[in-house]
């Protein structure tokens, strides 16, 4: 796991946890260190993660054994075209302060992906230039992919202002 070793050596305690499971490398990063780690992953020649393949979140509120822990995990899937390797970075955030620094300056695609995470999970991205919902409409109440949002809740469809 040279990638994970390298990250641990470079960032020390900011890398909270690492895992190598079925060939997938995962590193859990402290929230404050996230912008630095992301920039390092993109710009370091040995890593060269030039593609932010995916950005999503998981709500661990009802996960057995993690009910008390940080509620959300924001998950970054990075891919490097030149090196042909992948890395998953995760940031844990609490329910009280669900916010993560934005990555729009590094990858413009983060704009829409972060808007989707805000829309679905209610995790804010500090410094996002355009923090609107992506898929749902602005008048929608709540964040549907949270585990405490019931699947059968109906909300009125609000049309454009007349």
């Amino acid at each position, binding site marked *: 796991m040279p990638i994970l070793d390298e990250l641990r050596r470079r960032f020390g305690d900011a890398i909270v946890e690492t895992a190598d499971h079925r060939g997938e490398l995962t590193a859990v990063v402290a929230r404050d260190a996230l912008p630095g780690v992301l920039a390092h992953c993109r710009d370091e020649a040995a890593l060269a993660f030039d593609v932010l393949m995916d950005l999503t979140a998981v709500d661990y509120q009802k996960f057995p054994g993690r009910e008390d822990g940080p509620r959300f995990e924001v998950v970054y899937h990075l891919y490097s075209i030149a090196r042909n390797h992948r890395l998953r970075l995760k940031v844990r955030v609490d329910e009280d302060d669900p916010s993560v620094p934005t990555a729009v300056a590094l990858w413009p695609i983060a704009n829409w992906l972060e808007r989707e995470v805000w829309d679905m999970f209610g995790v804010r991205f500090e410094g996002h230039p355009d923090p609107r919902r992506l898929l*749902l409409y602005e008048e929608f109440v709540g964040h549907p992919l949270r585990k405490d949002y019931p*699947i059968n809740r109906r909300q009125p469809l609000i049309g454009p202002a007349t």
Partner: protein
Amino acid sequence: MAQTTRREFMLGEGSGTGGGPQNLHLGVGPAHPAMHGIIRIAAELDGETIVRADVEIGYLHRAFEKDCEQGGWNNAIPYTDRLNYVSPLINNFGYASAVEKLLDIDVTERCKYIRVIMSEISRICDHLTCVGASAMELGAFTVFLYMIKAREFLWELVEDVTGARLTISYGRVGGVKADLPDGFADKTLHAFKQTREVLDEVHRLLTGNRIFMDRMVGVGALSREETIAYAITGPLLRAAGVPYDVRRAQPYYVYDRLEFEIPTQKAGDNYARYLVRMAEMEQSMRIAEQALAAIPSGPINVDFEGRPIDPASYVDRGKQGKTEGLLLLPITLSPNLQGQERPELRRVNVDDKRVVLPPKENAYGSIEGLMNHFMLIMEGYGIRPPAGEAYFPVEGANGELGFYVVSDGSDRPYRVRCRPPCLPPLAALHRMIVGEMVADLVPTFGSVNMIGGELDR
């Protein structure tokens, strides 16, 4: 304030006029005749030039990811059909593979070949639809008819295999629903021959056509760097000169054993995308032909002898406890269960009771089979992957289609995330259309091949 008359306005007199030229706000969509797909583009025009564009999506959002969390792991398969509904087989296999990675199981050799063949047929269907529809929007209606005709040949193959044309639900965790039908290879080769004729015709009609070139060359271009920064994959990335293809970069199934090329172009404009798609269809046919030639068949291992029996009387006898001699007795199944017999299922599914339904004759004929069936179907049982997470990328028709699944060890997915390949191009659409004419919006939008089901989930 006095009302400005039309005459005053035209002459630049009266209130509300003057102050120089004003930009026109134009809302394109959500339902626009020149655009296939439900999306709204709030554009600002200076004359005929687009100076600002805001793309709004979400009109087809139906909570795919939330729905997947409600049922068992296999219950999500029909939902994945409806992601990219032009090539649903790839979605099925992508999702199934992600769950298989979580379970750490390896599907059978024959199943891998079947998945490759069916994926490639779907990819051709997708490209045919994309090229045909965007040509139609430029006025080349003949091309659309030709290509839909070719897609029809391929959809007939899909129908032969899966029993459906669109909502096929053919993939299963641990295998596929049923084996290939008899004579499938010959039919496929014949359909490919017809498809190649159509592609030749389309090449003659479009490639080099003055009108088509004028509308496509240099339009909607995106630089190589920006394409990468926007995480765009698939034909759009290859049209910008990056030969990235999941099938080659990180081969899955049996792609590493098959020979194929990755067509690339340099310009990154609509015409380059068209050329890449046309070349990819030929490569897909090449892959499927090799896979058909190499697919392992082997004799059907019949490990029992007996006379066929009607399933209803079979079940009746079982209910009365007269099970003697019923085990391993072959039964004739109703047509809608065909392909569910033991030999076929053995060939295409892994031998793993945790995930694969038993053959129907076992489920009907033995208590073990019935229990096995129940354990997989009943709520609260079913497939139970160990707690953990997995990301599995496949090459969808529009680019990298990834499924990120999280399991808490129960019979339901804790989280299913689909990385939709056509979201990044839409996020970058404003970069492709700003500075170009309104009319150029149509070919650009056609060439990104937006599929609402996958984009909005």
